[in-house]
């Protein structure tokens, strides 16, 4: 098991956070959030990865075969679904902001309100 995927996960976490911190545009910010989320996918999948193992579908392979861990894959799938809802909700809010205020720049929106 290589340490490489964990480094990738840490890297995605880092740049995702930095993107959210430095963003000047809500749409860009939400995309950074999905990058950040990528780190969870990479971490979960690499936790369950085995080299030279098959996918854990026991239709055409014997139950004794060497397979990757299906649990983390199920977790990742759930994670995708859950976060898709959040991102959809966020994008809906951004559309509302754009419709009503013609801006999706957080700083500009605040200036308008002040």
């Amino acid at each position, binding site marked *: 098991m290589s340490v490489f995927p964990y480094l990738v996960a840490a890297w995605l976490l880092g740049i995702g956070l930095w993107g959210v*911190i430095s963003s000047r545009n809500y749409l860009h910010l939400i995309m950074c959030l999905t990058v950040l989320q990528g780190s969870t996918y990479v*971490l979960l999948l690499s936790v369950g990865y085995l080299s030279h193992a098959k996918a854990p579908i026991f239709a055409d392979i014997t139950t004794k075969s060497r397979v990757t861990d299906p649990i983390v894959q199920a977790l990742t799938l759930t994670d995708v679904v859950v976060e898709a809802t959040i991102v959809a909700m966020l994008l809906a809010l951004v559309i509302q902001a754009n419709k009503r205020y013609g801006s999706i720049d957080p700083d500009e929106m605040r200036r308008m309100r002040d």
Partner: protein
Amino acid sequence: MSQLAPLAVGIPLLGAALLAAGHKLLGRAGSDLLALGLALASAVLVLILLVHVGSGLSIYWFGGWHPRQGLAVGIDFAVEPIGAALAAFVALLMVVALLYSAKTEGVEAPYYHVLMLTFMTGMIGFCLSGDLFNMFVFFELMSVSAVALIAYKVREQAAIEGGLNFAVINSIGAFLFLLGIGLIYAHTGALNLAQIGRTLSHYRNDRVVVVAFALIASALLIKAAIVPFHFWLDDAYAVALAPVCLLLAGAMSEMGLYGLGRVWYGVFGPVMGTQVHVVRAILVGAGLLTAVWGSAMALQQDHLKRLLAFVTIGYVGIFLTGLGLLTADGVAGTGVYVLADGCGKALLFALVGILQHRFGSVSQQRLHGRARGLRVTAAMFFAGGLLISSLPPFGPFLGKSMIEDAANKVGYGFVPPLIVLSSALAGAAVLRAGARVFLGWGEPSQQDAGGADEQTEPETEGQRDRTPPLMLVSCGILLAGTIGFGVWFGFADLAETAARRFISGSAYQAIVFGRAVGRIHATSASPAWYDWLYCGGATLLAVGFAALGLFGRRWGAGKLLDLGQRAMTPVRLVHTGRIGDYTAALSLGVGILGGLLVVTLR
């Protein structure tokens, strides 16, 4: 009897789906009634579970996947008394909130009802879940519903911003939670709390465990809004509808702390035993900082909901202090305090909702003296202010004195004075606002705290002549709750017994793996004389601070007030309203927590 647990979650979820599908048949009144009925059904189910479980633990295995050969691979609901009590509290609070919002304008059937029901489902599921990943899923269900409810008044810019702040920060929290779950799964190959705890007990404490704990704890502290993770809270609570605020302030903030207690005692506590002093110091330190920070910020606010949001932050800080003592007494005190104070904060939000309904504003400056005619509302508001500043011998007093005693027992003698300070400041903020709005005392507040957004949000609904009786009835129920938890003889003993069960990770594991564990019964010492002194003192101080705030300038203490204002300036300036800044603070907090735990690892 444990079969009832999934029903308590399934019934409102299914009901919400049916409501969404069939709202045309039901109309507004039907939606109100159905939602109310579903919430009530959940409440009854959870209450039956609570009575049945007593001081024990009741496990429900989904699909009958019981542990085999000492290995738990199934997913379970683990109902223990504190979780069941919290779930029951959530459901009852939801009943009150739906009663409060019944027949009011400004909410639309069925969207509002569906969201409220899924919100409640998420919270109840979170309380009952015995599986780390299911905790995450319910945590997210709760967050998604909360985002939609917070940004409900989507025509207002502040509502959009509040919703975005909440959603982004809490999503980052969710990712941290999941990263922590991934690490702990990699380490133990398990997701069931009891199974993880049992596997970890064969290991030594190491960096993976500590980092996983730091990540999961950060996620839960973000939900609880502990400094420096708290910035999203006031932006969100300030814009949410009043009935939603009832649940947000009364229950959602506390969910994070409940989760923290559950993962600490069930999973990490035993293996991280060598670091227990460090964890205690960090949690109590963060709790006290939050307690004082939130309450001090509450005094700076003109916007009533924002004021109460900061009061909420302050009180969550006290809860974390109690929980963070990591003793049974601390947990028991926190439990009592959460229920009593949750009612108190919900009451205040509900009363502010009445002001908003009547006068279309929640600004102290605009409402100055205008609410003179609302006698009942005023009386309840002042009662609420006195109660949350821990007026003996009612609910918040009982909880707080238990926490203070627990702190003295572990040698943290500096905790009680700081808690007194925090509740005095929070009480003062509420009482001063009440005196301005309901009595017209003092000059109209001039402060321009935290930017101009404090004067925004003119409610479109305009002015009305009467308060709907259902709103007042709901407030009455909440007031009765705040008072009742303190004068209910034997409540403290029940809490103490439940807390003993809660902190025993080994007994939890034993029961999950099918072994019987003896019943326990504990009694709680009644509040000592100095508790009466402390808490009575806090109430008196609150009244004093409020008076100083109202008449200080007339009494020639203007310099003192200006000094206080100036001292708070940097704290106010940190609350910028920018997601980027909040995320930076959050990252710093995670870094500090993880760093401290890794550095002190032996």
